[in-house]
């Protein structure tokens, strides 16, 4: 009877053997590069006749942060950035570092200083339309704002918030305009156009979130939208959605993608202008990326050498410098800029994806930027790409017109206004 049973030691040895094999395989997969493919934001389809304010608020939260736990993400050191990409520039939490655009958090009343009676964004929005500068903007743009064609006409705080999404230049909060534009040009992209391209209901959802976040009873977003546009929300939504490009896939830059796709996916365009990249013509937060010209100078600069001496930076070639700037942005911050570039790109690039982007940036020079009418920001100590002689025109308006002739592209010329004015100013100093 005893021999009817298989020897237990054989079972044990076999089990140990395959456990060792499985451990080896699992260990190997953990040693290989780990890439997590996050799902892109869902295209939003909402039946506005049945939607509740709370649903819109929740949707808005998701569009802004890409999460329903943004604070938790911040505390974990992650960047809560949704498809709207608002937190790249606006501050929504005290724990967040973003000061390129106005704060959207409730702040103590500046007049009373009372911590308990904070002024919310919803309350602030009502003040905006009463601001004399808003009336001045209405007059200035009576024929329509240049990029959107919209004539500023918000009457309520909610309408103002709606308008800001479709026409960021219609009113620029003091101190937040592009340098040299006297707060008439906003660094914010038009939200219903590429690359962000939210549809109407998504914009209403974002505004709902802003209205209700600190004051749950203040929901007027749909009413505001319909009053502002004079039509029912949802009309023509289908056509807009059809035009909207599909989300480009998981947020990992891959070697199989073009530089344009990588820049779009990584949202570099939100801060930088990059020659050769269609979507990256408006970034006014970070330096112009012409690394074929800039990187050698930066490496040779005294500031960079100081960082090397401190052991914080280590690049010796332009390629290394660009990789370092993406993977470890804090290693060296270009003088004139703040250290507020996102720090998680090292988790978002495959090596081949990084190569694609680096190759593109290395190929960009002053010449390629000039050819596309792009210019450095005033903050960059290297100065404008436009020679003083060319920029020495009577006034700002003529400057723009001249650059339009030179560059042959009205929009690009407009976007280079900051650089031109900087050069203009220099020519007189």
């Amino acid at each position: 009877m005893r021999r009817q049973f298989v020897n237990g030691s054989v079972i044990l040895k076999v089990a140990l053997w395959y456990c060792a094999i499985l451990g080896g395989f699992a260990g190997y997969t953990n040693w290989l590069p780990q890439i997590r493919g996050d799902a892109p934001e869902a295209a939003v389809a909402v039946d506005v006749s049945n939607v509740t304010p709370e649903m819109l608020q929740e949707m808005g939260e998701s569009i802004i942060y890409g999460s329903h736990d943004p604070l938790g993400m911040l505390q974990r050191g992650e960047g809560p950035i949704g498809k709207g990409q608002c937190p790249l520039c606006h501050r929504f939490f005290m724990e967040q570092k973003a000061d390129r655009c106005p704060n959207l958090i409730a702040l103590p009343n500046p007049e009373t200083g009372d911590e308990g009676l904070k002024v919310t964004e919803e309350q602030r929005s009502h003040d905006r339309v009463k601001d004399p500068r808003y009336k001045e903007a209405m007059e200035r743009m009576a024929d329509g704002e240049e990029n959107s064609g919209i004539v500023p006409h918000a009457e309520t705080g909610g309408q103002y918030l709606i308008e800001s999404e479709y026409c960021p230049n219609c009113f620029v909060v003091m101190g937040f305009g592009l340098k040299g534009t006297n707060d008439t040009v906003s660094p914010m992209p038009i939200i219903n156009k590429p690359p962000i391209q939210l549809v109407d209901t998504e914009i209403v959802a974002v505004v709902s979130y802003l209205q209700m976040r600190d004051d749950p009873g203040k929901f007027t977003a749909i009413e505001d939208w319909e009053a502002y546009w004079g039509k029912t929300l949802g009309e023509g939504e289908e056509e807009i959605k059809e035009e909207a490009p599909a989300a480009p896939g998981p947020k990992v830059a891959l070697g199989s993608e073009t530089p344009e796709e990588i820049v779009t996916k990584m949202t570099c365009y939100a801060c930088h202008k990059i020659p050769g990249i269609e979507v990256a013509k408006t970034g006014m937060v970070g330096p112009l990326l012409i690394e074929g010209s800039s990187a050698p100078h930066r490496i040779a600069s005294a500031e960079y050498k100081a960082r090397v001496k401190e052991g914080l930076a280590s690049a010796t070639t332009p390629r290394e410098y660009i990789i370092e700037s993406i993977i470890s942005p804090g290693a060296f911050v270009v003088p004139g800029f703040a250290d507020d570039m996102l720090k998680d790109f090292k988790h978002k690039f495959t090596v081949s994806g990084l190569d694609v982007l680096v190759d593109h940036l290395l190929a960009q020079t002053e010449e390629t930027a000039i050819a596309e009418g792009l210019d450095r920001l005033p903050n960059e100590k290297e100065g404008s790409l436009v020679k003083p002689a060319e920029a020495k025109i009577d006034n700002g308006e003529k400057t723009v017109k001249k650059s339009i002739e030179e560059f042959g592209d009205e929009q690009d010329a407009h976007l280079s206004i900051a650089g031109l004015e900087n050069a203009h100013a220099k020519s007189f100093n």
Partner: protein
Amino acid sequence: MSVIQGEKKKKVGVLLLLSMLGLLILLPFAVTTTFASGEEEAVAEEGDGEPKMGKDVFYKEEGQFGPISSRPAPELVYPDDYGTYGDYQSRTILWIANQQHLYFGSFVLAVPMFVWVMELIGILKYGKDPKEGKKFDDLAHEMMKISLTAYSVTAILGGILIFTFLALYPGFFGYLASIFRPVMHLYALLFILESGVLYVYYYGWDAFNDGNGDWKWTHLGLCTLLNAVGIVLMVMANTWVSFMMSPAGVDEAGHFLGDIWKVMHNPLMVPIVIHRILGNMSFGGGVVAAYAAFRFLSATNQAEKAHYDWMSYIASFMAVMFLIPLPFAGYWLMREIYGYRQQMGITLMGGLLAWVFIMQATMIATLFITVNYYLMQAMGRIPGSERYHGAFKFILAILVISTISWLTPHTLVMTPAELKAMGGAQHPIVGNYGVMSAKNTAINTMITTTVATFLIYQRSNFNLKVPWAWKGNIFLVCLFALAELNILFLGIYGYFIPANVRIGLSVPQVASTLTCLFVGSTINAKMLKGAEPIGEIRWGQMSRRGAYALFMLAVAFTWTMAVMGYLRSSVRLHWHVNEILRDNSPWAFTNPLGYAGNINSLNVLLFWTMLLFVFWLASLYATKSPLAREAEARGEVVAASH
């Protein structure tokens, strides 16, 4: 003579008749699907009472429109449409339930195919050598015994899988059920038929056994029927999977358009089915080989050892035989994926999931090295093989060098400091082996080397007697040498030409490999005609390392299935049903490879632990193999030719 011929005809007639019966099982399947297409009620109507038509997402031109016959794909909302068990990822729980069911399902569907071949060989050999015929018949019978226990486990795991779907993914499962409703019960009914045939086939083994008479052929016919039902079941299950990857028969909103055949016959259905049938066969062979290895290790007498040694050889031979065409089926599947959605192909081969192919390369290299190692160990029991022992170290060296070359990545992920130290993401010397030229050369060299090892194994026991033996030997040496030179030359040449031209070089490289396989095997077989055995094969005297190598082979097969399953499933990214039903759960992201590796290892561990239990049960049921009983009664050691 004419009486014998008449008997033969009769037997063949019986086999054909029963085989036809087996194939007839497809008829109700076809009829049902045809009826189902017309029976579905159109749920949406235009103003004049005419059904509202939807446009198919895949089928074009004629037949692209169909009546909207179901509700649209739901907008799933978390947590309403998803269930959870505490903080565990629901997707991972479902992953495990699915993988376990798939493993056992594959096993119980593959074993009858394997058994069919064994039983047929047994019947055909019985006329010349009843003892040899019975040996194969007993092997087939023993395998069915294992399969029977595994069948129960499969059914239990199927139940667990359904409950997991209902508990954790009710929204998704509801949608899929609404689309496949016309054939879901057919699937269940086929299981009843499968069970009935299986029980008659298994329990009727002895009753139908008259050597190679009509009853035995009838029994083989039952096996044909069993396999036919099994294949239909597998095809049906695969249509769900392929529908999720490449939906058809529905419109953009996910409405079912009334024709279930279009849903089932979606763009990736056929290549997935073919790939899975071949994979199942290979996997089944691997598991049987592992079972035999287990029994070999635990055998208490020489006869048992001999039997299971022989059985492990037969099973591993079957596994490798179906492994060889598998890459070609995989290539076809990948081509169809590119044809369906180029982005899907890029995600697999050059994008997010590209690193998984490095893991696949590791697994395939493991399989080839293990097969070679097993053959070398197995030659230890073959008199005459000593002549070739000196070549083993060179064969292993070639395999290891090829593996290292194959696994060298093109670029590496590293810290900025490492990047700087190396001067770039690509190593200046080693990085050269990371390109496709080197990889194609490596894998073709590995396959060619394995073919050479197998030919050596086949001839190691014989002194050749054909008069042209020396010419044949020279031809074989030249064939392999020229093939390898061609593979190497094209590999090196690939470094000097543009990438788009280089891709074309893989065709002549593969052609060299296949020429070695087919021409080499044929010439070798012809040279072995009338060859004189150098001595009797010492079955049962294979080293224990050889048995453990078979376990390695089987576990590597299982792990490869897991990793490629992860790859196939992950390519849908954030879609339950590609571009139709979005995954809105918190687990819609694609897991990194390390996590997948951990879950794969857990799945394989669970599977093999359950399988070990099944093996143990089988050892309880029959303490001695029939051959061992006979041998013991005669007091002799069983020896057999291969």
